[in-house]
C-alpha cells in the first residue's frame, strides 16, 4: 500500500474518532463536516509549523470562533484551495508569515472581486499599493466577522489600528513617502493615548475614511496640526513669547514638527527625561528662522550631525547660549545677521581667554571697532555649531580666510607654499602661519614681514651670506642688512612690481607713528592730512614736502623719522612666492639709478591697527638733499644718490683738471719773462 493512502486512512480515523469521542469542541458548534475533519488536527493548540525564516506559524484554529465567523459556511477548502484530503498534509516550503498570508489572501478574490473591494476609495488605494498588507493582515483569517458587526464591537482606535499598525505608507506629490503606520504602544503611552483617532484626524471614523492627497509631508503635518488648535487655544499657545513668535513669525507652521504626533508627551514629563541639547533640538532641528530688523532672516535651525562632529559636541547648548536652558528661553532682538554673529562671538572669550587676548591685538578686531562689520569674529573662522579644532583641522585657516581673501588664495595655491601643500606637505604654511591665527597682523610694510618667514626659514642670514656678502669677509650681518630692509617677497616673487615705502616711525618707541596721532597733532582729519603732506596738491609728495612734514611734526614734539623698506606693492604679489632658484639675485635690480623700485616711492602712515595709508611720492624723492635727514636710515648704493653731490663731483673733477691746465698755460705764457730773467742773471755773472 502506498504511504499516502496509509496516512490518509490514519487521518480519517483520527478525525472520525475525534468527532465521536467528544474531545473536539467542533462537536459543540455548527460546522461543515469537512471543517470538522480539518479541525480534528487543527484544534490542537500546539500545532505549529516552522517557517524558513524561523518564524512559528500557528496552525491552531479556535473552532467556536471559526464557527462564529462569517466564513463558517465556507468549507476550509473554499479558501485553502490547494489542500484536499488527498494531498494533506504535504511538505510545503513557506518563507515567512507575510508570504503565507499574502498567498492565502489570494483566495479572497474568489468571492470578493476587485471591483467590489475598490468601491471604497481608501480601500481601493490600499490594495493597489505594492507594499500593502494582504487581506488577512487587516481582516484576519479564520475569525472574520461581517464588517458591520465587527465595527460595532471594536473601539475606534483598534479599528484604525487594524490597518495602521501595519507598515503602510503613502507616496506624496513631492515623491516623499508619508508613513501611515502607528506604533500602538507609543500611542497608548502618549498624552493623547486616550483620545480617539478622529479627534485629531478630523473627518475620519469607523465609517468615514476619505482619500486625501498631499504635496509634501510639510503640507500634511500642517494640515494635521490644525486639529491641535481645537484643544490648544491660540491664547494658550502664545502665553510664552518665544512660542508665540514660533507660531507667528518664525514660520514654524506645524505643531507636530516640534512636538511629534502619536508619541506626543506632556512637556512637563518630557523635560526631565531628555538632555538639554535634545530638548533644544526638539524645535531647533527643524528648519525655521527669525526675522531681523534689517529684514534679513536668521536661521535658527541646527544640524545635530554637525554638532556631533564639532569640537564642542560634549558641551550643552547653554554653555554658549547663555541664559537659555530647558526652563528659560529669553526673547532677543538683533539688528542684522552680522551683528548677531558679532555678539555671539562674545561668548567665546568665556573659555578661550588666551585666544581672545590675541584677537584683541588683531587687525580684525581693530577693523571691527573702526566700524567695518565685515571684519572677522570667532565664528567667521571657526564656524558656530560646526566648530572645528584648528590643531586637527589644518585647513581651517585656509578655508576660513578664503571667505574674505579669496583672491589671495588663488595666488597662494600657485605659489611654492601652495604647491607644496597640494603635494601633501602639511607643514607648508597656510595663512595663519605667517599672519597668525588670532592676533592676525598686517605683515605688509611692517617689521613683522621678515619674522613671519623666519618662523620656518631659519638662519636665513647665513643662508643668504653664501652669495650675498661683501669681500673680503663673508659676514651674515651684510646679508642681514638686506633682509632687514627688503621684504622676502621682493626678491622671491620675481616679476612682481616693487616700491620703496617710507613709513613714519616714532624714534622713541621704535614703532610706527600712528596716523591717528598725526591727525591729532596737526589738528586735521584724513582729507586734511593729504593737504598737509602734499602741500602743493599735485598728487606727488616731493622731497621738500617730506622735509616740511617731518619738521612740522617735530615742532609739535613728535620725534619721528621715516624708515624705508623695499616691498612688493600688492598682497597678491606678496603671496606669489616661488622657488629660490627663480629668486632675484642680480644686484643691479636695486643698485642702479634706474631701478624700478625707486620709481615707486610712497610715504606711509600706519593706523593704530597696522593698516597703512599710502601717499605717492615723487620718483626723485630719495635723491634730494632734503631727504638726507628725514630718511637718514636708508641708503642704497647707486640708487639713492644725492643729486647735489653728483653735481659737486663734476665740478670738482673739472676744477681739479682745470688747475693744471691753467697753471701750465701760465707757465708757457710766462716763458719769455723767465728767459729774460735767466739771461739777465747770466749777464750779471758775466757769462
Amino acid at each position, binding site marked *: 500500500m502506498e504511504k499516502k493512502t496509509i496516512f490518509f486512512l490514519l487521518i480519517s480515523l483520527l478525525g472520525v474518532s475525534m468527532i465521536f469521542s467528544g474531545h473536539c469542541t467542533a462537536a459543540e458548534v455548527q460546522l461543515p463536516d469537512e471543517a470538522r475533519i480539518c479541525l480534528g488536527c487543527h484544534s490542537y493548540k500546539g500545532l505549529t509549523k516552522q517557517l524558513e525564516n524561523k518564524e512559528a506559524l500557528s496552525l491552531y484554529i479556535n473552532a467556536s470562533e471559526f464557527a462564529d465567523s462569517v466564513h463558517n459556511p465556507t468549507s476550509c477548502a473554499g479558501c485553502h484551495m490547494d489542500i484536499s484530503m488527498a494531498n494533506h498534509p504535504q511538505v510545503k516550503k513557506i518563507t515567512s508569515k507575510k508570504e503565507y498570508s499574502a498567498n492565502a489572501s489570494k483566495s479572497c478574490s474568489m468571492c470578493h472581486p476587485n471591483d467590489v473591494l475598490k468601491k471604497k476609495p481608501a480601500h481601493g488605494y490600499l490594495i493597489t499599493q505594492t507594499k500593502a498588507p494582504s487581506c488577512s493582515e487587516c481582516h484576519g483569517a479564520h475569525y472574520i466577522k461581517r464588517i458591520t458587526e465587527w465595527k460595532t464591537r471594536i473601539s475606534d482606535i483598534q479599528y484604525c489600528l487594524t490597518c495602521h499598525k501595519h507598515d503602510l505608507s503613502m507616496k506624496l506629490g513631492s515623491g516623499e513617502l508619508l508613513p501611515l503606520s502607528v506604533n500602538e504602544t507609543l500611542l497608548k503611552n502618549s498624552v493623547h493615548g486616550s483620545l480617539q483617532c478622529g479627534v485629531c484626524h478630523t473627518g475620519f471614523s469607523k465609517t468615514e475614511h476619505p482619500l486625501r492627497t498631499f504635496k509634501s509631508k510639510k503640507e500634511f503635518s500642517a494640515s494635521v496640526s490644525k486639529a491641535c488648535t481645537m484643544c490648544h487655544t491660540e491664547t494658550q499657545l502664545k502665553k510664552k513669547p518665544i512660542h508665540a513668535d514660533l507660531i507667528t513669525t518664525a514660520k514654524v507652521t506645524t505643531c507636530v514638527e516640534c512636538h511629534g504626533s502619536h508619541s506626543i508627551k506632556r512637556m512637563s514629563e518630557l523635560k526631565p527625561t531628555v538632555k538639554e541639547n535634545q530638548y533644544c533640538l526638539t524645535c531647533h532641528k527643524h528648519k525655521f528662522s527669525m526675522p531681523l530688523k534689517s529684514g534679513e532672516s536668521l536661521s535658527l535651525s541646527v544640524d545635530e550631525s554637525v554638532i556631533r562632529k564639532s569640537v564642542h559636541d560634549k558641551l550643552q547648548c547653554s554653555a554658549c547660549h547663555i541664559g537659555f536652558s530647558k526652563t528659560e528661553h529669553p526673547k532677543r532682538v538683533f539688528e542684522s545677521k552680522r551683528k548677531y554673529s558679532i555678539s555671539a562671538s562674545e561668548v567665546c572669550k568665556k573659555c578661550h581667554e588666551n585666544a581672545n587676548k590675541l584677537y584683541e591685538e588683531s587687525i580684525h578686531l581693530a577693523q571691527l571697532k573702526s566700524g567695518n562689520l565685515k571684519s572677522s569674529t570667532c565664528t567667521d573662522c571657526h564656524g558656530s555649531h560646526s566648530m572645528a579644532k584648528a590643531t586637527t583641522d589644518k585647513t581651517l585657516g585656509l578655508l576660513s580666510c578664503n571667505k574674505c581673501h579669496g583672491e589671495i588664495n588663488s595666488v597662494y595655491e600657485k605659489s611654492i607654499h601652495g604647491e607644496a601643500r597640494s603635494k601633501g606637505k602639511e607643514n607648508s604654511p597656510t595663512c595663519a602661519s605667517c599672519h597668525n591665527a588670532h592676533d592676525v597682523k598686517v605683515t605688509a610694510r611692517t617689521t613683522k614681514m621678515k619674522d613671519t618667514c623666519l618662523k620656518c626659514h631659519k638662519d636665513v642670514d647665513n643662508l643668504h651670506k653664501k652669495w650675498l656678502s661683501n669681500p673680503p669677509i663673508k659676514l651674515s650681518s651684510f646679508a642681514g642688512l638686506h633682509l632687514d630692509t627688503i621684504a622676502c617677497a621682493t626678491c622671491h616673487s620675481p616679476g612682481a612690481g616693487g616700491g620703496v615705502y617710507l613709513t613714519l616711525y616714532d624714534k622713541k618707541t621704535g614703532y610706527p607713528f600712528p596716523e591717528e596721532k598725526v591727525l591729532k597733532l596737526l589738528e586735521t582729519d584724513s582729507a586734511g592730512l593729504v593737504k598737509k603732506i602734499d602741500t602743493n596738491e599735485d598728487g606727488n609728495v616731493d622731497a621738500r614736502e617730506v622735509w616740511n612734514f617731518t619738521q612740522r611734526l617735530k615742532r609739535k614734539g613728535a620725534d619721528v623719522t621715516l624708515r624705508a623698506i623695499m616691498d612688493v606693492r600688492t598682497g597678491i604679489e606678496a603671496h606669489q612666492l616661488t622657488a629660490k632658484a627663480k629668486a632675484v639675485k642680480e644686484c643691479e635690480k636695486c643698485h642702479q639709478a634706474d631701478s624700478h623700485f625707486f620709481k615707486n616711492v610712497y610715504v606711509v602712515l600706519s593706523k593704530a591697527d597696522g593698516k597703512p595709508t599710502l601717499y605717492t611720492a615723487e620718483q626723485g624723492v630719495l635723491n634730494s638733499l632734503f631727504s*638726507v635727514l628725514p630718511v*637718514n636710515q636708508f641708503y642704497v648704493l*647707486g640708487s639713492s644718490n644725492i643729486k647735489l653731490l653728483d653735481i659737486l663731483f663734476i665740478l*670738482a673733477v673739472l676744477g681739479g683738471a682745470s688747475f693744471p691746465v691753467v697753471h701750465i698755460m701760465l707757465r708757457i705764457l710766462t716763458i719769455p719773462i723767465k728767459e729774460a730773467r735767466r739771461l739777465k742773471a747770466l749777464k750779471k755773472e758775466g757769462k
Partner: protein
Amino acid sequence: MIRIYLHPIPIRIWHWINALGFIILIITGIQVRYGNIIKLFSFETAVDIHSWTGFILIANYCIWLFYYLLTFKIKIYFPPITHPIQFTKDSIRQAKFYGYGIFVGDPNPHHPTPDNKFNPMQKISYLMIMASLIPVQIITGLFLWDPKLFSKWINLVGGIQIVDMIHVLLFIFFSAFIVVHFYLATLGHTPLAHIKAMITGYEEEEEEHSH
C-alpha cells in the same frame, strides 16, 4: 746736482700701492655710483674690487703709519709749533712761488731734506689728508662696507645717509686732489724728476750757487 735720499723703500711701496689703490677706488666708486651710465664692470664686480682694494689700502695705511711712528719720522708732517710765525711766512712764500714765482723763474724756496721733506703747504695738506681725511674715509668706507655691523656707530654719526655723504664728499675731494697731486709731481726740475724720485728714492736737487 746733488742726490738726496728722500723716500725710503717702505714709503715708496706705500705710495705706489696707495696711488694705484686710489685710482682703483675712484674708478670702481664711479662704477658703483653711476652704474646706469658707465658699464666697465658689473655692480657686483665693482663692489668686490672696491672692498678688496679698500682693505688693502687700510693695511697700506697701517704700513705708512707704523713706519713713520716707529722711526719717529712722523714729525716731518707736523708744522713747527714753536715757530708759527716763521712757518706762516714760509707758507706764504711757498704759495707765492706756486702762484707767481714759478711763472717768473724764481727758484723753489723749499729744498727738501730727509728731515724736512715737505714744504709748508705740503705739510699742511698732507697732515690734513693723512691724519684726518684718509682715516675718515677709511671709517666711513668700513661703515658702508657692512652698515649693520657698524649700525651703532652709524647712528652716532647721524645715519647711513650722512655716512655716505661724507664718504662721497671725500671721494670728490680725492678725485680732484689726485689730479692736482699728479700735476704738482711734474713740477720738479724736470717733469719726471719727482716721479723718478718716488721710484728710486733719490730726489735730485740743484746745487746752491755760492756768490
